[in-house]
């Protein structure tokens, strides 16, 4: 086939990327051999495409990640719940970071030397029975997480520790409408205490709770070590049947 200049120009991109069919490529090459204008256009296009790839040498502006991190935390604090994935059968990513075994105990064994401890409490909204919940946008200032009456939820509590620390006391204070579930059984006590250790960095404790009475409730978790104590609260609504 004999191609006009305009036909060749349309095919320059394809020619550059070796995407033309063999007869087309042959025809374009033949035209280019006898047409300085189109030949130059090919070389110029190649130069432009090459220069464009240099434009990818972009670095993140200084502070970008930190600024994003702050926005993300603000978003997470305002809207702690998203559509939760259906319950996964596999081990959650935080499993093994801190494991609660057995039943909670009251009282605390003697504490070791004082250790600096930073504690942040971050709770993720529950899953509805059946697995998926959508965070409703409510008119009030604080979005509320909810679970159905009789339904269960996993509340995840963050602890951030500056170093490994033992002999930490965790307390969970539950309101009348919310009870903890362990090994599939409701734990009757409204106040639960564990002794445990934290690893340096982030520690995450998942706790299974059930809505046992409808209403607007507050769950409080606290961490104590050598007299230094921090606590956080988490709002939970139990929807009546």
């Amino acid at each position, binding site marked *: 086939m004999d191609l006009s200049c305009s036909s060749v120009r349309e095919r320059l*991109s394809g020619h550059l990327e070796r995407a033309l069919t063999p007869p087309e490529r042959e025809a374009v090459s033949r035209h280019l051999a006898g047409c300085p204008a189109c030949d130059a256009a090919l070389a110029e296009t190649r130069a432009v495409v090459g220069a464009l790839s240099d434009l990818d040498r972009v670095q993140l502006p200084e502070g970008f990640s930190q600024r994003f991190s702050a926005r993300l935390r603000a978003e997470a604090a305002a809207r702690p719940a998203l559509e939760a994935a259906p319950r996964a059968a596999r081990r959650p990513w935080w499993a093994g970071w801190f494991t609660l075994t057995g039943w909670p105990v009251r009282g605390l064994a003697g504490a070791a030397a004082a250790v600096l401890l930073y504690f942040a409490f971050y709770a993720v909204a529950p899953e509805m029975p059946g697995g998926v919940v959508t965070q409703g946008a409510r008119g009030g200032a604080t979005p509320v997480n909810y679970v159905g009456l009789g339904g269960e939820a996993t509340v995840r509590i963050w602890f951030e520790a500056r170093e490994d620390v033992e002999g930490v006391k965790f307390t969970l204070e539950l309101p009348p409408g919310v009870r903890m579930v362990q090994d599939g059984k409701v734990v009757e006590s409204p106040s639960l205490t564990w002794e445990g250790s934290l690893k340096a960095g982030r520690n995450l404790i998942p706790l299974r709770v059930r809505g046992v009475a409808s209403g607007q409730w507050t769950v409080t978790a606290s961490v104590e070590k050598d007299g230094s104590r921090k606590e956080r609260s988490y709002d939970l609504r139990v929807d009546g049947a």
Partner: protein
Amino acid sequence: MTAAATTQDPTERDLLDAARAGDPDAFERLIAPCQRPLYAYALRLTGDPHLAEDLCQDALLKGYRAIGGFTGNSALATWLYRILHNTWLDHVKKSGRETYLEDGGDETAEEPPVLAREALVRFQEGLRDGELKERLAEALARLPPAMRDVVVLRDVQGHAYDEIAEITGTAVGTVKSRLARAREQLRRVLTGAAAGLAEAAAAEDVRKR
């Protein structure tokens, strides 16, 4: 009862499960490798670092909110690019008409003079690190949005065609034809600019004599 803590590196799948449940730390770790390329995409689309940062972070936050619905059928990065693409388009619509370079159409009419061999070499060098390089970034930022989009994704960032099709929500054939027109447009603008620069330099020489 004492609980022992052990550490375990989460896999991407584990992070995704946690991110879906609203965990910001997991989300941040998941998207960390995407931050720079996404920002680069936004920067080449807008030509404005502050706007690029805003659009990029807006898109990432939208990703955080919507990740519950991310099925994993495409790669996470591609999904985020698509969100950023849409976020940018919304911005373009809202900010009113910019002036774009005209889409060339049939080119044989107003063709700039063919660059001679030495001029071609100067053209290539100028594009690499001369004044033409700035002109290239400017010309890119003034391409019509649909054309700018595919040039940035293909020629600047090197995405595969089917990925570009997914990001932009168009067919591969459309991507390729837009790309060809965009490259031609840039070529014309830049060879014109090169000729202009050469003329100015020559005039300067004459003036100096």
